[in-house]
């Protein structure tokens, strides 16, 4: 064990012990609210810090050779040939149904199935499904299914058509990053009445589908789906964490995180993941009075004074905030990579190259942020799908006999949700550390260098954890 690790392990254990000891007095002071927590929220940040440092020490001492590269996948299930087109067809039907509901259903967002389908089930539910079952979205991806069907028909009618344009390496994940950023602007910066409006969402859904079809026509279905389709890529990155992978007509099993560890980074991956983490962080930050009182209200006032309408001022301020938060996340990560660069003597890789190579290690953190910030939304608002599916247009129908179902806010307590959020954050960051450690062992020539290179990644992980817990403490 190096001197550094010895020096760090003891304070970490002491911090964890202090956090546990402090549980009694805090409880005695009756620190309860909506959440009945046994310790002050800030102490969770300190406990998380201790857990991460201990995990780091454990990795440095017990994990001394790269492991993920040697792991093998095992075929578990052979799938019938009809399943893939069937899933694609189901995906097209669901997408068509959502678009139809957007145009034909009620304008009242709470009574129309579209907003909940998009912001809760699609945006939050599928990432969690992707972790559990692999890239399920790819199978049901409607625009990919249309693209593949169109390609199949064209092949039958016109034979070998023109070859698609080669997807430029430099473009990488940038179209996906732009798409996710655009969705984040819609979710966080556009006035509520517009972003929840079913017909607006339907129009945007059609525009998004059209862009995907153009992208696939230009670069080919696979190339565009793998890099340019924002949602496909977004869910696909989370699916790399999963122990299941769907490949052609086979379902294969692999160790947890192995898919992420073997992901080959391309241009724009750092940008995409920073947008993913930045948008979730900003969503949490906007719930705080710090954002409202210190930034939002004063800046909106200035824009209004400059002649903007209140709505436009609001959109500009929130878009600016989203960009700033993404910038903060990117800067933190790049600082960590610069630290990594300074810690390895004689290395030839630039900070940018290191940032690109280690970017996949941020994927579990991005998922942890999604769970931490939206688990409550999924737990409660997700139930609304029961009555929304029964009456998708909000016109008084009751197809499934569930139109009178109401959300049960008691099935999970606010305290339990908070624990899920904290556990997700700690697990996500610990997974990130493990991935970074393994990648460092592959990248650098000695265990000593690999461990030392990760000192600063540890700092990045601790910073992200503290930021997430601080945001949670503000928003709940």
């Amino acid at each position: 064990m190096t001197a550094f690790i010895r020096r760090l392990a003891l304070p970490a254990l002491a911090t964890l012990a202090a956090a546990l000891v402090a549980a009694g007095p805090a409880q005695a002071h009756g620190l309860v609210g909506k959440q009945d927590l046994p310790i002050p929220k800030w102490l969770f940040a300190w406990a998380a810090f201790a857990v991460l440092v201990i995990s780091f020490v454990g990795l440095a001492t017990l994990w001394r050779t790269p492991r993920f590269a040697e792991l093998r996948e095992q075929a578990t299930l052979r799938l019938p040939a009809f399943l893939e087109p069937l899933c694609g067809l189901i995906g097209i039907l669901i997408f068509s149904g959502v678009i139809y509901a957007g145009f034909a259903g009620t304008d009242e967002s709470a009574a129309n199935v579209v907003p909940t389908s998009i912001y809760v089930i699609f945006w939050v539910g599928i990432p969690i499904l992707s972790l559990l079952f692999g890239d399920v979205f790819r199978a049901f991806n409607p625009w990919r299914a249309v693209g593949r069907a169109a390609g199949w028909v064209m092949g039958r009618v016109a034979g070998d058509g023109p070859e698609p344009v080669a997807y430029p390496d430099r473009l990488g994940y940038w179209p996906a990053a732009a798409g996710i950023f655009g969705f984040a602007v819609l979710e966080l910066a556009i006035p509520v009445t517009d972003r929840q409006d079913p017909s607006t969402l339907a129009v945007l859904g059609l525009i998004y589908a059209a862009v995907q079809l153009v992208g696939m026509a230009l670069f080919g279905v696979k190339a565009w789906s793998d890099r340019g389709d924002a949602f496909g890529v977004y869910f696909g990155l989370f699916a790399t964490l999963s122990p299941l992978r769907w490949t052609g007509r086979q379902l294969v099993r692999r160790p947890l995180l192995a898919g992420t560890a073997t992901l080959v980074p391309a241009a724009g991956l750092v940008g995409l993941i920073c947008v993913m983490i930045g948008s979730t962080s900003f969503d949490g930050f906007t719930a705080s009075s710090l954002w409202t009182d210190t930034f939002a209200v004063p800046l909106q006032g200035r824009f209004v004074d400059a002649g903007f309408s209140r709505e436009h001022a609001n959109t500009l301020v929130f878009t600016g905030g989203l960009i700033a938060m993404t910038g903060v996340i990117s800067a933190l990560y790049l600082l960590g990579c610069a630290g990594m660069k300074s810690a390895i003597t004689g290395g030839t890789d630039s900070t940018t190259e290191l940032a690109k190579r280690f970017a996949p290690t941020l994927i579990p953190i991005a998922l942890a942020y999604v769970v931490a910030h939206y688990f409550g939304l999924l737990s409660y608002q997700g139930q609304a799908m029961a009555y929304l599916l029964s009456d998708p247009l909000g016109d008084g129908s009751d197809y499934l006999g569930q139109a009178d179902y109401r959300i049960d806010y008691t099935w999970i307590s606010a305290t339990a949700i908070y624990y899920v959020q904290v556990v997700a954050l700690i697990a996500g960051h610990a997974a990130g550390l493990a991935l970074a450690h393994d990648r460092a062992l592959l990248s650098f020539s000695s265990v000593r260098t690999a461990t030392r290179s990760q000192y600063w990644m540890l700092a990045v992980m601790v910073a992200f954890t503290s930021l997430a817990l601080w945001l949670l403490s503000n928003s709940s």
Partner: protein
Amino acid sequence: MTSPPLAHAGHWAVGLIYLAPVAILVVTLLVISRRDRLAEAEELRQGGGGAAANDAGGS
């Protein structure tokens, strides 16, 4: 009606408790990195730079 940032010093102060672990870790890392670098330079100067030379990264 807007209020100056100073009026929200309480928010910032609470935020500092969350920032403290990061600050402690960064300071510790800076000190340790400096010591490591000095020890490495000393090692190289004394001619026993095998371990230090092996540190050179490369992928």
